């Protein structure tokens, strides 16, 4: 079972201190002439090349929660958990298509969040606000889940007393998060960009060692698949059906495919992924990374296999059972039982730091959304860049505190339910953001109503779905016309259908559409073709650096 190990603990503390130092030092990395600008704090100077972007995006979208939850799902249900691999394979061809256009228009117009873009493209504050609210709502539980990931590592490490109040129990978590919040406040996106290097090196190291070392200790892959297969065939007394299967069954194929496709479409409309894209220096950086980021998918696939390895280690199964049958402990337990204590420390650090990087980027992304779409748009239209940056910094703190509250005070299941809802919600911004990159055929008000319908349907449907011992929010799939389908995708189809029909109606009755401030050339622009590359990012109004007055058209 979980017990405290001084060596493991020392390694984890050591790597946390190193990362903390890097976080604070990153404020001086590629110094900007004017750090009090949202392009600097919120997007790291919009100057990351392929190399840094690869680490940042990889560190950002492959979150610690993924590294805990995907193997947990494989541990519990087998092949179904591999939808995550299929999804991360599909996501990059999709990103390849639309992300360069999104990058270009953001660069040309100075947008820092998807909310800005939607507001400018569709000429609709309301739609911008809808996208921003959805983004913030979906991001908050996502940050909370990073904490849940850290928690499962700490539980296995035997840190935090099981008794006492929630706040006392989670003190280590709170300290780790407060420190992260502090350097994010100070350095903005530069901090997670630099820390991502440490995270990724630790993750790759852990995965490569684990995938070679652990099977050799427990009887090889043949044995691992054998144990997994035997377990998955046994009948679950709670449901009367087998726990899962080693290969997706024909009945499960539709759910598997729609979950993978829906998640792939959703990933790059999440604000934190968009932030990573906007921070790139050049348009080609995005496409190059669409071909290079799959290296992380390979890692994800191998990590998913950890679920089967954990199943083949009796001590892990005993540990999971002793902790209320929580499969999320399977990976930390696997490290604790299979690795020497110092390397278990490396693996645990990888997960903990792997949680801090996305948490930081997510809070920055949500802060950018709030600042541009709510603060600047509604509260203080004449805010200077410095005021914007101050507001964004505070907003990032608020996001972190909120997420911490979620993770500590509320039931863990609640965060997981909300994350499930977040995936459904964020996909409802797809028409305004991604389809909006290609066409303005849809009427702005039709898009708002379509969004609302998709949100409402998705929320209600998720609420009505029982499963996994819960009466509500039990699963992310539901039966539609006899096919078990990912709710988010059904909601998206409904969303687009409603938007299309209403667009026709609104055109017919002559309802006025919004003003599009973007121009066709913006979508293929690559403004830094001849940048003053030698100068530090932010030196003088370089070409491509959006003019501060870009929004002059809003005069009445």
């Amino acid at each position: 079972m979980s017990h405290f190990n001084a060596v493991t603990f020392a390694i984890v503390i050591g790597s946390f201190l190193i990362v903390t130092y890097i976080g604070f030092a990153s404020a001086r990395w590629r110094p900007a002439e004017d750090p009090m600008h949202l392009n600097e704090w919120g997007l790291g100077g919009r100057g990351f090349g392929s190399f840094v972007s690869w680490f940042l995006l990889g560190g950002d979208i492959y979150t610690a929660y993924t590294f805990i939850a995907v193997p947990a799902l494989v541990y519990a249900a087998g092949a179904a958990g591999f939808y995550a691999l299929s999804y991360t394979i599909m996501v990059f061809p999709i990103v390849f298509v639309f992300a360069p256009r999104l990058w270009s228009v953001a660069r040309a117009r100075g947008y820092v969040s998807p909310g800005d873009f939607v507001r400018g493209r569709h000429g609709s504050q309301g739609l911008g606000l809808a996208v921003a609210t959805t983004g913030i709502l979906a991001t908050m539980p996502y940050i909370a889940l990073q904490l849940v990931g850290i928690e499962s590592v700490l539980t296995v490490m035997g840190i935090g007393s099981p008794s006492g109040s929630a706040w006392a129990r989670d003190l280590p978590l709170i300290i780790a998060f407060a420190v992260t919040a502090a350097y994010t406040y100070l350095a903005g996106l530069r901090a997670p960009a630099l820390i991502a290097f440490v995270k990724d090196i630790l993750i790759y190291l852990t995965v490569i060692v684990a995938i070679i070392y652990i099977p050799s200790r427990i009887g090889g892959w043949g044995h691992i698949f054998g144990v997994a297969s035997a377990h998955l065939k046994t009948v679950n007394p709670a449901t009367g059906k087998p726990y899962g299967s080693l290969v997706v069954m024909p009945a499960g194929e539709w759910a598997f495919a729609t979950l993978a496709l829906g998640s792939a479409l959703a990933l790059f409309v999440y604000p934190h992924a968009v932030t990573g894209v906007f921070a790139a220096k050049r348009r080609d950086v995005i496409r190059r990374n669409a071909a290079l980021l799959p290296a992380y998918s390979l890692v994800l696939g191998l990590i998913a296999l950890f679920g089967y390895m954990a199943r083949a280690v009796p001590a892990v199964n005993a540990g999971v059972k002793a902790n209320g049958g929580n499969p999320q402990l399977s990976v930390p337990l696997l490290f604790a039982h299979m690795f020497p204590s110092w390397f278990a420390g490396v693996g645990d650090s990888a997960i903990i730091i792997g949680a801090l990087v996305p948490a930081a980027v997510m809070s920055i992304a949500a802060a950018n959304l709030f600042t541009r779409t709510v603060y600047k748009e509604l509260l203080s239209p004449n805010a200077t860049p410095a005021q914007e940056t101050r507001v964004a910094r505070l907003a990032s703190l608020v996001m972190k505190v909120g997420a911490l509250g979620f993770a500590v005070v509320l039931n863990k299941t609640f965060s997981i339910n909300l994350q499930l809802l977040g995936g459904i919600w964020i996909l409802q911004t797809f028409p305004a953001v991604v389809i909006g990159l290609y066409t303005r055929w849809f009427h702005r008000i039709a898009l708002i109503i379509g969004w609302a319908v998709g949100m409402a349907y998705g929320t209600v449907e998720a609420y009505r779905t029982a499963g996994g011992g819960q009466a509500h929010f039990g699963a992310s799939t539901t039966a539609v016309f006899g096919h078990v389908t990912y709710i988010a995708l059904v909601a998206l189809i409904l969303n687009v259908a409603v938007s299309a029909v209403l667009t026709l109606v609104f055109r017919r009755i002559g309802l006025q559409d919004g003003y599009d401030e973007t121009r066709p050339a913006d979508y293929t622009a690559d403004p830094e073709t001849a940048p003053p590359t030698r100068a530090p990012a932010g030196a003088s109004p370089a070409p491509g650096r959006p003019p501060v007055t870009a929004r002059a058209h809003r005069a009445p």
Partner: protein
Amino acid sequence: MAKHAPAGRSPATWGVVTVLLIVAIIGTLWVPIYARPAPKLGPFPFFYWYQLIWVPVSAVLCWICYLMLRSKPRNRGIVPR
């Protein structure tokens, strides 16, 4: 063959890129292709090694598309300023 794509890419180039990307997506979207245990690769059922191999395959397809679409390197002259 490191040919630089011309500035205005031909419809043929876009056609090829579209096909390659669709292939990359369909490869794992169409689950019946790989939802089977055999043929095994060592102890790995087909379902697993197919997906793991598809990762580099889709990456290579994206890379080819990138090479076909990338902007001309260092073309001064055109740039104002």
